[in-house]
């Protein structure tokens, strides 16, 4: 296996795109990453997307996007794992380059959700659940988060307001991110009175429906001198790991522990030969406040049952010991499902390249991005370091 680096990054602001379709959004992010990379040729393309079938009536996104960026003929594939699709696409591209089969690979995560009615999006994302035993019983993605959150509050005696730290930090950090959807801080008084979506989960506990695309260009490290003559500092992919769990929360060993997130983060620390303390920032899957708390615990950043309380005490702040959502996270940058995993990786690369302005984590040499499908069935972890 060869070492792989990220040589180019690109993203479009997370927003509602009424005049641009999937192929246009993918194009814009890919061309930005390609231009940034200083690499001329691309050998293969991976597209991470979760919802094109349901919301855009489109399959074969690999070929569609390859053609649209003027690369008709190259090998291309679409990868799906709920809202971990983008990160899983990156893992597949990483394997393709590490194996020696390809020297360069483009990866894009792209999602368009805002053109559909909210009820259509809720129906489509309910497919991230176990259809036969969760969704058919009337469960939605948010309702399963709510079931986990209520049990968490009961079992660990955590007050609801402790969860405010997650949306609060995310919104605060998004203020300085021109690519974020919500660039406005939120008040605790608003959090306490905002409408419930699925008790005890309120509107500020969940990431928004939105559109977006983000992309990276990968290159085999040993080919850098031949294939690349200029460009920004390359970022090393020190670990790329995947783990799985039961799709249905009721089938898990412990419904309040994200086993897949735990396994993939442990594998990633081992592959990178780094401890949590060697890593200065963490982009975790804060698709809801409870998922953020459980992710902190799964990655070893807080003891079980302490994730929300630790966050409320400053663990996750930009100047805290384990900063998360440094550019707004899923909550405030936005969670364009299949694109999200690539946004996370692009933001870590920006941090390591010192392109994050006021949100720069000083001394950032290594960052971890973890993307989770649905309620925890697929977990993909990447650790990036300066080359």
């Amino acid at each position, binding site marked *: 296996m060869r070492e792989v680096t990220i040589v180019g990054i690109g993203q479009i602001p997370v927003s509602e795109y009424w005049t641009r379709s999937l192929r246009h959004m993918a194009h814009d992010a890919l061309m930005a990453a390609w231009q940034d990379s200083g690499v001329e040729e691309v050998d293969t393309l991976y597209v991470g997307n979760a919802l094109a079938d349901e919301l855009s009536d489109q399959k074969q996104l690999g070929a569609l996007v390859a053609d649209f960026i003027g690369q008709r003929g190259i090998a291309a594939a679409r990868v799906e794992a709920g809202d971990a699709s983008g990160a899983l696409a990156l893992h597949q591209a990483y394997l393709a380059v590490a194996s020696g089969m390809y020297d360069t690979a483009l990866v894009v995560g792209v999602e368009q959700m805002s053109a559909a009615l909210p009820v259509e999006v809720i129906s489509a994302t309910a497919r991230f659940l176990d259809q036969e035993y969760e969704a058919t019983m*009337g469960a939605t993605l948010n309702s399963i988060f709510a*079931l986990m959150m209520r049990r968490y509050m009961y079992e660990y005696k955590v007050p609801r307001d402790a969860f405010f730290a997650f949306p609060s930090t995310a919104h605060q950090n998004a203020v300085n991110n021109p690519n974020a959807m919500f660039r406005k801080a939120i008040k605790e008084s608003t959090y306490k009175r905002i409408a419930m979506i699925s008790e005890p989960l309120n509107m500020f506990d969940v990431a928004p429906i939105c559109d977006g695309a983000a992309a990276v260009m990968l290159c085999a490290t040993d080919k850098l001198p031949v294939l690349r003559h200029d460009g920004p500092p390359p970022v090393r992919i020190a670990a790329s790991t995947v783990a799985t769990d039961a799709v249905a929360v009721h089938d898990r060993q412990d419904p309040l522990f994200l086993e897949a997130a735990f396994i993939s983060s442990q594998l990633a620390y081992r592959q990178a030969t780094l401890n949590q303390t060697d890593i200065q920032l963490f982009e975790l899957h804060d698709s809801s406040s409870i998922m953020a708390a459980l992710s902190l615990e799964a990655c070893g950043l807080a003891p079980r049952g302490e994730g929300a309380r630790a966050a409320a005490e400053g663990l996750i702040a930009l100047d805290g010991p384990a900063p998360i959502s440094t550019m707004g996270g899923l909550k405030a940058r936005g969670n364009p499902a299949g694109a999200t995993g690539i946004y996370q990786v692009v933001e870590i690369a920006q941090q390591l390249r010192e392109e994050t302005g006021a949100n720069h984590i000083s001394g950032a040499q290594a960052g971890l991005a973890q993307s989770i499908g649905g309620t925890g069935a697929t977990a993909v972890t990447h650790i990036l370091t300066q080359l």
Partner: protein
Amino acid sequence: MHIAQNWRLKAQRYRLVGEVCEHCGAKIFPPRDICPNCSHSAKESFEFSGRGEVYSFSALSETAEKFQRFRPYTMALVKLEEGPLVTAQLTDVEPDKVKIGMPVEMVTRRLMEEGNEGIILYGYKFRPMLDKVA
């Protein structure tokens, strides 16, 4: 889901038929053919009593398309007395009366309707256990 997909699950939806592991005795629902406890093959049918308690619950107003006309309703994780957790709706109870640990029992109810021409799906929900209600 298509008609055949639902029809295949009628024993689970109407009678909570799962499995019992011949090796370690674990009771399994939903049936999955390989025991999650000991990883041995588990194919012997086992019909659950339908009794259990509320493990967690949530009253929701945002639902998928097929469940729109049944809003609002309460989702729950129910811990069956034989061990497994199931995801199901609660019925015959106001959301503000539900508590974690409340004893519940399975009943067969209408789950959803797929428009005017689609199927009407029946299956399990859970209500407060009648002999425990004052």
